[in-house]
């Protein structure tokens, strides 16, 4: 027994050394490589490179090298933007032979530094692959190139009365390939489930250039191991997704939303239970924002604010959305719920506002969706996307704030605010620490403090944002040694040379 334990420990040590020494065995892209790419890619706009043969001005590579938050900066000299899966395959094969690292990139809206290079890996952008390959209006199955922007797909299926099964604040820029690679969650997960369920098939270019075509459009297919599940959420470390087949649900005939003002955070959980019970199948979103997050969103003009009276005494807000097949039926359920909430002996809410038309519906959502942008405008954000028990949400925010205060970091020049908001229905809290600038002092005060706090609640250090480059060292807080060892084995099988998004997910 102990021999087996020693053997598996040796193996995991070998694999871990394997990977970390490997990444230093990767080659940098040379001018000859750049010339080769220029030859094999059909359009001159597909190659951006500061290397001599191409001589693109360095500023043009900035948007690819820098992440959305301005926290991670890569040093890639070359960005490739293939137009077909075949081109992707040829690029990958060449890079694998030459041991050149590749960072697959979609909309570059990720929040954990997974979409930009750590050093000078080649950025392979899917932005030029934007074709919708097919859509069946009867089944709702959509097949699209990985570079299609989520909002474009939403617009594409809308005339057919369908919607995408996921929705997130970055919808105007994020691409479906990236969504699938990061197993994005978002605002609709409560109702439509995760991508592990709604993705029916994938077309993936493996690290040796082979095209794995599992792009079927079957709702049910139990034939062997379901390989696509590995790529969903692998963050581009096992292969590059080039095509996605996804099930789109029918568009709701009636949508309503309401923002409720709560006097105390402790009311969120009983409120959630009540809402779930009374609205049942028409509940499609249950989002929470604390008072500071609301004030920030209003300050940065994200949506129209509620009146002074309405927000007085509110410690936090909850946005409830309903989606159903019949307007009158939904409105009746919603009205009954709101009446019972207001007339209860001990009301869980102070008050609330109900959208009266689509414009107000969007405005109320904007207050929630706009928090992320408001945070970016307010300062530099340390984002902790955690899954913890609902009853501990406030505690996590308060204790983090206390930690910073005790280190003397809570002031206008360092950490300006600590806020919490998120997908209550999914047990997912977005803890944001807004600083004037990213500094090692603040970083050290927060990590490993936050991760240990999460681990103490047996939570996840990354509910939906993924690991990227940010949390590779924190993986062990939520996955045990055996799990991590097996992840490394799988990585080694798919990518023995370690070229695919090196340094991400696994150290």
């Amino acid at each position, binding site marked *: 027994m102990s021999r087996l334990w020693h053997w598996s420990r040796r193996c995991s040590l070998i694999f871990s050394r394997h990977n970390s020494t490997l990444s230093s065995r990767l080659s940098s892209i040379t001018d000859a490589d750049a010339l080769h790419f220029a030859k094999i890619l059909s*359009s*001159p*706009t597909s190659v951006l490179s500061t290397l001599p043969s191409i001589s693109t001005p360095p500023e043009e590579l900035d948007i690819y090298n820098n992440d959305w938050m301005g926290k991670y900066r890569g040093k890639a000299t070359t960005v490739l933007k293939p137009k077909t899966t075949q081109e992707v395959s040829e690029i990958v094969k060449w890079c694998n032979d030459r041991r050149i690292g590749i960072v697959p990139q979609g909309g570059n809206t990720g929040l954990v530094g997974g979409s930009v290079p750590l050093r000078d890996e080649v950025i392979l952008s899917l932005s030029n692959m934007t074709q919708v390959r097919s859509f069946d209006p009867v089944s709702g199955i959509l097949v699209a190139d990985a570079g299609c922007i989520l909002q474009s797909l939403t617009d594409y299926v809308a005339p057919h009365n369908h919607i995408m099964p996921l929705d997130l604040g970055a919808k105007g820029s994020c691409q479906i390939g990236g969504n699938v690679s990061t197993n994005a969650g978002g605002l609709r997960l409560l109702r439509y489930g995760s991508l592990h369920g709604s993705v029916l098939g994938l077309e993936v270019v493996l690290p040796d250039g082979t095209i794995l075509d599992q792009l079927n459009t079957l709702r049910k297919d139990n034939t062997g191991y379901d390989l696509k599940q590995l790529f969903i959420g692998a963050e581009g470390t096992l292969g590059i997704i080039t095509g996605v087949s996804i099930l789109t649900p029918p568009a709701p005939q009636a949508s309503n939303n*309401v923002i*409720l003002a709560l006097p105390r955070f402790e009311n969120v959980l009983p409120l959630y239970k009540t809402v779930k019970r009374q609205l049942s199948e028409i509940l499609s979103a249950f989002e929470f924002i604390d008072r500071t997050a609301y004030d920030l969103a209003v300050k940065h003009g994200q949506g*129209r604010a*509620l*009146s002074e*009276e*309405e927000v007085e005494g509110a410690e936090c807000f909850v946005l409830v959305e309903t989606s159903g097949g019949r307007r009158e039926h939904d409105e009746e359920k919603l*009205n009954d719920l*709101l*009446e019972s*909430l*207001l007339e209860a002996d001990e009301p869980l*809410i102070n*008050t*609330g*506002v*109900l*959208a*009266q*038309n*689509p*414009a*107000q519906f*969007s405005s*109320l959502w904007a207050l929630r969706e706009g928090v992320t942008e408001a945070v970016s405008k307010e300062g530099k954000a340390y984002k902790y996307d955690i899954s913890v028990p609902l009853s501990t949400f406030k505690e996590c925010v308060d204790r983090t704030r206390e930690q910073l205060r005790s280190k003397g970091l809570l002031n206008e020049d360092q950490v300006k605010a600590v806020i919490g908001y998120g997908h209550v229905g999914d047990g997912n809290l977005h803890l944001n620490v807004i600083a004037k600038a990213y500094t090692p002092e603040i970083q050290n005060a927060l990590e490993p403090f936050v991760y240990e706090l999460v681990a103490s609640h047996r939570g996840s250090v990354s509910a939906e944002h993924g690991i990227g480059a940010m949390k590779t060292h924190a993986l062990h807080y939520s996955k045990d040694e055996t799990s991590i060892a097996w992840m490394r084995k799988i990585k080694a099988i798919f990518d023995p040379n370690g070229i695919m998004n090196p340094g991400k997910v696994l150290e």
Partner: protein
Amino acid sequence: MRPSPARWLNILVPVKRAVDYAVKIRVNPQQTGVDMNVKHSMNPFDEIAIEEAVRIRERLPKGSEPLTITALTIGPPKSVETLRTALAMGADNAIHVEIPESAPAPEPLGVAKAIRAIIDKQKEKENVDMVILGKQAIDDDLGQTGQMLAGLLGWGQATYASKVELDLEQRNAVVTREIDGGLEQVRVRFPMIVTTDLRLNEPRYASLPNIMKAKKKPVTKLTPADLGVSFEPQMEVLKVTEPPKRVGGAKVDSVDELVEKLKAAGFTAV
């Protein structure tokens, strides 16, 4: 014995249920109109009108006699929802002049005559001091009702209002109007007509307690016959078409390709 006129104020706000402004409208195959099977809501300018009436009430000095805001709509049975929204925003009571579902949409002259009839009817109990209307409805963009009503009643009018300041003692109002050259201020005596422009205010969300209260507020139902008016259309819509589709541009990969495309489109070098 009626309370002294200087302290009473009755405001009438006609509102219209129109296609919601966020809806993507489609012309029907017969080219006689647009697809009406879409989300409807209160005309945005009418929302602004209700909001202004509520704000006027909120601005009244403490101890003033209460102000009554009556919302009014002319439309099919479903229009009563628009009245509920008005009541939820702060109107005190509402009047629904009901017309059949299949009837054509009333035209401004018909609407103005109906509003005049209602004001005449109300005279038996109390006078209407001010009618606040939206400057135009976003479905027909006609923008005539307020002005026609002022003509029929012989009342002063201040249209395209971006600010309304009441002087209760003097029984008049100073209204800032948006005109092509900028802003114009007019002083108008009560009773008067005001039509709202976009910048007058931003309508509030309907709060839950008000929505609950609104359910108990009275809605009076009337028919065109009760008012002695007819909504017989005076205009006939001949054709409705979409504007010409915008043709997309194309990217070219080289100067030669650009020159070729220009030649194909009929441009020649000078």
